[in-house]
């Protein structure tokens, strides 16, 4: 167990040390979300009817942060895929290190990058008119906690994807074909009431809706029902399913 912790930290440290040396990736997780915030706020914002009493800036920021956090695990998919192709996974698997440590270290370092992009987005939000309202400091922190947990869960999804796909390009298309629609057919950008019936039905059960609504409850005081617990349960279930699958795949990974 001690080996698992130290090995995980060694790998996490490696991922974080190399991050500023590949600045394009860092750029993708800071500049790109800011661009999205500006586009949605100023291009679509005027055309979207938000629930009474909620400005679009307040509506948008929790949604776009959740979307962004879900994509944060993308670093894991790309990184693992690169490691498989470069033979580094072979090197790690031939070392007497704890078996889950490479993946645990990867997903752990995602937490750090996710916190970074969360900060960038929140600051951008505050500049364009977002404000924490009808909330307490504790609720805001609980919201950060949910974001970290949900992002961590998606890191495990992306860990499995990174080990399964043949190239970074296919990891990319998985992200856009599977995750993108999932985030859009949710309450993240547009209230589901405005969608056609079939999409609305999907959006209402989509875990993204649950997490986004939990965030809106915690950050802007929107009525939330059981969404906060729902968000936690969804995150835990995703980890419980994808972490073992990814570790199993890692054990059997056969290189390029």
């Amino acid at each position: 167990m001690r080996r698992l912790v130290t090995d995980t930290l060694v790998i996490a440290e490696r991922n974080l040390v190399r991050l500023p040396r590949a600045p394009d990736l860092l750029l993708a997780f800071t500049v790109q979300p800011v661009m999205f915030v500006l586009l949605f706020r100023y291009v679509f914002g005027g055309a979207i009817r938000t629930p009474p009493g909620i400005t679009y800036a307040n509506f948008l920021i929790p949604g776009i942060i959740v979307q962004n956090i879900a994509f944060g695990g993308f670093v894991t998919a790309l990184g693992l895929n690169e490691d498989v192709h470069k033979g580094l996974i072979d090197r790690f698997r031939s070392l007497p290190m704890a078996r889950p440590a490479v993946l645990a270290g990867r997903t752990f370092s995602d937490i750090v990058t996710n916190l970074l992009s969360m900060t960038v987005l929140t600051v951008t939000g505050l500049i364009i008119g977002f404000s924490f309202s009808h909330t307490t400091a504790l609720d805001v922190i609980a919201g950060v906690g949910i974001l970290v947990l949900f992002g961590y869960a998606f890191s495990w999804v992306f860990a499995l994807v990174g080990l399964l796909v043949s190239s970074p390009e296919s990891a990319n298309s998985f992200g856009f074909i599977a995750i993108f629609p999932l985030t859009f057919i949710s309450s993240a950008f547009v209230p589901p009431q405005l969608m056609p019936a079939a999409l609305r039905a999907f959006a209402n059960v989509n875990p993204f809706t649950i997490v986004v609504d939990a965030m809106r409850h915690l950050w802007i005081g929107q009525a939330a029902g059981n969404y906060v617990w729902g968000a936690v349960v969804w995150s835990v279930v995703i980890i419980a399913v994808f972490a073992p699958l990814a570790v199993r795949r890692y054990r059997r990974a056969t290189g390029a």
Partner: protein
Amino acid sequence: MRTVLNMGTPRPADQSVPPETSDDELAISVRGLSKSYGDVQALDGVDLDVRRGTVLGLLGPNGAGKTTVVRILATLLLPDAGTARVAGLDVVHDAAKLRERIGLAGQYAAVDENLTGLENLTMVGRLYGMPRRQAKARGVELLDRFELDEAANRPVKTYSGGMRRRLDLADALVAKPPVLFLDEPTTGLDPRSRLNLWETIERLVAEGTTVLLTTQYLDEADRLADTIAVIDHGTVIAEGTSDELKDRVGGERLEVRLEDGEDVDAAVRALAPMSAEPPVAEDGLVKLTVRERRGVIVEAVRRLTEAGIGVDDLVIRRPTLDDVFLSLTGHVAEEKADEEAAAA
């Protein structure tokens, strides 16, 4: 066509070791190893023995099964059948323990391009369970030894191909493993870097490391390996020292260059009794295959002198491993490799 010759002749430093090999002396022992991927039978009952402190060269074209052997022995892949012991440990049941005693350097240099050389080695050391300070000290020591000390704090992406291979090899040596697996260590290197790496490997072996080396280069096996196992289609088709394998191909090539204007036909007649096959003559050069090296030059000179024929130059050429490979597999090593690369 399965032929197993005597195991390798001891290298000079090992002459105190008795010729029989007991289990204790075998660093690697493989029996009936099989592995298939779907319909493709990658390994079909491979047997191998490597004595401690020696180098086994696993020679074969691409797709012959060399890398599969290494991956199983390095605990990266489970065999379908057969057993393998490395450093006294079973590769399947003692895998976790075995990983502390092996080093692996791959075909592609498995190093992190965005880390510096020292960061790479420190990371590997810590993953072997060393404290940070010790891992770093070991890293500095290895960088020094592999003449990478000046590049220690540069990201690996600025390294040349040869430097990356040396760093990869250094990674494999962090824990001073008694057994080292080198999967095509010099593929894609320029001749100078290749020579450099060969010398490094020779130094390691001189210090007592056991090495299993795969290669498709015959000269590499010839230079580094004490014993060579030729593998094709997942089976070991011949095994022995480089010399034993060359002897198997049959005989030495004797080449006699006559002085200008000498009678070539007379020379052929004079030399014919020395060979089972008729000598070949072209442009004043007479070539023949002889069964044994010993006494051949003296006899050839005697026969030609008796016939009154002047000799300009006279050479015995040993068959190369290329001749061996061709005669054992019916195809040339490199050609086969190219075909498979084209088919892939």
